């Protein structure tokens, strides 16, 4: 299990009726990184990871009501990509929202 947190220099705006399941997440590495737009499942994965959840794949599976074995590989791959872009970092329980 790996926990994540939002780096201190990442700006975030979540859009959607339910903050726990945002439809769109806008991110920007401050002060002048190019903004990234995450939609649908990508938005959900980032927002779950941002809460410091220990098991992001399991939490995402529960939120979107899909079996864990189906989502886990994609979730882990996407988290690695987010980390490489500096839009999330390994650390856990670092919810800054």
């Amino acid at each position, binding site marked *: 299990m790996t926990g994540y947190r939002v780096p201190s220099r990442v*700006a*975030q*705006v979540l859009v959607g009726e339910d903050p726990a399941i945002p439809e769109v997440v806008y991110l920007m590495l401050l002060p*002048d990184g*190019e903004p*990234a737009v*995450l939609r649908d499942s990508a938005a959900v994965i980032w927002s779950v990871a941002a809460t410091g959840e220990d098991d992001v794949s399991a939490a995402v599976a529960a939120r979107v009501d899909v079996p864990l074995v189906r989502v886990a590989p994609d979730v882990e791959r996407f988290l690695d*990509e987010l980390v490489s872009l500096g839009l999330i970092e390994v650390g856990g329980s670092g919810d*800054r929202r």
Partner: protein
Amino acid sequence: MSAETLPLGVGVQFAHAALQVLADDHGIDLLHIKGPAVDAALLDVRELGDPTLGESAGGDTLSVPVPRRSVDADVLVRPSHVDRLTEVMHRHQWTTLFRFEDGSAFEHATTMSHPFLAMVDIHRRFPGIGGDAELAFERLWSERQTAVIAGQPCAVPSLTAQRLVLILHATRAGALGHGDIRRSWTDATDGEREAVQALAEEVGAELALAAGTGRLHEYAGRPDYELWLALSTREHAKPRVWLARVRAAPTKRAAARTAVRLLVPNPHRMEVGLGRRPTARELARAYVDRGLWGARELVAMVRDRRGRKR
């Protein structure tokens, strides 16, 4: 994942966040004002039926703050830090769209633009605050608080100072019926109004505050009385506003400068509007148009005065 055109509201919030990071990195003091920096206590609210209460609850509603819609991000900067901020911003993709002298007659703000963020208005003073700008900023800075914008902790004025800023802004726009004045003053408690009044007196904003709250007559005779009377009542006779601005200037030199800049076309603003440098012919034409406009307005004002005397 993709980068695309940001919705304006997101671009405004990101602009605030970007400026706070630049300020933190370079020891620049700035306060985020208006737009997403406004305290929830001063926002308009929308009443929603509460679905969790069911119909039996009959009439129960939830009050939900309505986020402010802004087209740009506004910050008030310690005047002695303004040059450093603009220099830093220029190194981070920002360009100066309008200089201080290109803006309003108050010359209070410069506008910066960015390839994908919302425009930013850098205020070196706030119209209506007539005292020394450096001292006024220090007064507001000393009671700053923090608001989270786009996930970033940003420095904002105290709630009392936010009330004052919103009232002055609406007053300058001649929007005396604006919800900002109602929420910041009319609906405030006696104690909250007293705090706003005390702050206004400290920073030299008592006259503009009075203009926004129906007490301007108490300041009749002050040099800036006519100006705030004209602004707060949306005076349409431009020569009258022009004269009021000249009279409100703190020194003769400032008065002369104000008089000239209001009559002479601004080549930089023309360049921004045209998207290129104006030609000599276009500049000459602008001078002629300005002159004709001034003459027409003056004639209209004289006629209006004669009409009132009859």
